[in-house]
């Protein structure tokens, strides 16, 4: 049974806030849901499926959020696999709708990561109840450090340079300069990235995503119902998700979850790599982008450095990515997967103004959750307006 073209993202809303000390997390989520429903012309009364995850949300939080919103959905999913969760939620919503478990599903995220001063990337402290933590946390792993170790190995094996990684950050900032709600909009150069302080070698400050507040929501329904709504539907063509971890000590660290989730998404969508007009690639760090593009198969392993060079990733380049400015410059409220799907939908609708990719018909979103250098999830989604 294929999910291809059975369901569509019909509503998408990115909360414009980047710093909201005056709002609660749930308020940002509620405002995001209202925005996404207004976007497609549905109301909260139409919603019978709810999917969410959040850094500040503990066990059973989705039940509390239903109380907050006075919702009694027929389908609930609070899968939390890190920042990629909302890409996976989009797939799960489509599967649930296709199976008849609900008709109109909302995926939502909200966070006050910046105003609550979460040390997301460099707060390598305690550790939770995960049995793996006892073998890792005593040594002081940080999120940025776990990604830095992937970059270090990639540079060693393939000669990838700091300049090549820096170009990714420079391109994201160019895109942010065309996004009125992006947090950092002043242009930067490769030299600026290399001159910024090294947080965890070989990654500099400007190789790292920002920390912001923010939120967003998506409305997903059947392709049939999508036809009567306000905006052009973004049909779901293919999905995939999985994890990579230490693999009992036997892992090849440059092989990441995207290799498997991407293969699944392409197989299920029936489209080829050359058909992808733009991609939204989780950019927690510059190396995340390079490793993801290789593992999704847009270039061969080891060729990522050359692939991201020469302006290829610009909105007007051969392979545009992260046209909103990405987590590196626009927003990163802890978990960014939501915004990958929102911007992909906006591109497919032609709503992106100066940063619009020409003739955008098929878009890919790939979320990474957790840390590439220890354990992480990957979720891939392929969407079309055709």
């Amino acid at each position, binding site marked *: 049974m294929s999910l291809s073209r059975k369901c569509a993202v019909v509503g998408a809303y990115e909360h414009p806030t980047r710093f909201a000390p005056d709002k609660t997390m749930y308020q940002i989520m509620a405002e995001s849901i209202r925005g996404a429903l207004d976007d497609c012309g549905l109301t909260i009364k139409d919603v019978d499926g709810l999917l969410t995850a959040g850094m500040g949300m503990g066990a059973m939080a989705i039940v509390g959020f239903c109380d907050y919103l006075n919702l009694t959905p027929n389908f609930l999913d609070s899968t939390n696999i890190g920042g990629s969760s909302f890409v996976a939620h989009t797939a799960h919503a489509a599967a649930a709708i296709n199976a008849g478990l609900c008709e109109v599903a909302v995926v939502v995220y909200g966070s006050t990561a910046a105003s609550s001063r979460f*040390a997301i990337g*460099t*707060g*390598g*402290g*305690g*550790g939770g*109840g995960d*049995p*793996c*933590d*006892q*073998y*890792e*946390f*005593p*040594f*002081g*792993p*940080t999120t*940025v*450090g776990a990604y*830095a*170790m*992937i970059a*270090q*190995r990639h540079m*060693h094996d393939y000669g990838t340079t700091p300049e090549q990684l820096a170009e990714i950050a420079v391109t994201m900032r160019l895109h942010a300069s065309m996004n009125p709600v992006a947090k950092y909009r002043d242009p930067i150069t490769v030299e600026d990235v290399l001159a910024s*302080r*090294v*947080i*965890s*070698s*070989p*990654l500099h400050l400007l190789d790292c995503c920002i920390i912001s507040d923010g939120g967003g929501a998506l409305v997903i329904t059947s392709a049939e119902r999508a036809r009567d709504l306000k905006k052009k539907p973004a049909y779901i063509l293919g999905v995939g998700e999985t994890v990579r971890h*230490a693999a*009992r*000590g*036997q*892992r090849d*660290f440059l092989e990441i979850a995207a290799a498997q989730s991407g293969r699944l998404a392409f197989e299920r969508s029936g489209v080829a790599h050359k058909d992808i007009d733009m991609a939204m690639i989780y950019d927690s760090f510059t190396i995340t982008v390079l490793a993801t593009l290789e593992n999704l198969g847009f270039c061969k392993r080891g060729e990522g450095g050359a692939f991201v060079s020469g302006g290829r990733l610009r909105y007007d380049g051969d392979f545009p990515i992260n046209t909103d400015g990405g987590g590196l410059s626009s927003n990163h409220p802890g978990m960014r997967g939501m915004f990958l799907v929102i911007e992909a939908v906006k591109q497919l609708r032609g709503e992106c103004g100066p940063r619009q990719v020409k003739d955008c018909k098929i878009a890919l979103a790939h979320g990474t959750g957790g840390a590439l*250098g*220890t354990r992480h999830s990957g979720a891939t989604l392929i969407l079309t307006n055709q």
Partner: protein
Amino acid sequence: MPQDKSPKAYRKPLPHIDEESRPWWEAAQRHELYIQKCRDCGDLRFHPRALCTSCMSARTEWVRCKGTGKIYTFTVTNQNQAGGFRDSLPYIMAWVEVDEGLKMLTNIVDCPPEQVKIGMPVEAVFDDVTPEVTLVKFRPAR
């Protein structure tokens, strides 16, 4: 118990030792490094588990490591706000591949940050950080 604020107090996170990991941590206290081997399929594994992570057999053998290996990858950490680490910057995080073939997350010690390299031969050192806990770290092989 009131928190020990003396300069000697160990402030970094300590492992939450459980029933599956206790023999491994006890060996570390004896300054011995072990991995596990499945008696049925022969697969090697680290971290310690009750069941084989390849075939789910419960028949497990502990294999003592020589204690030598090579750096697979590393990072020099210059920023970590967490207590304990904030005071010991910069420090080296690494995945070390031990000679038995498995990779372990660890710290490289007794090595200036500017000299650490991928492929560098290293040897285990046993850091008795508290009376109950010994951490297995690595230093450049001598």
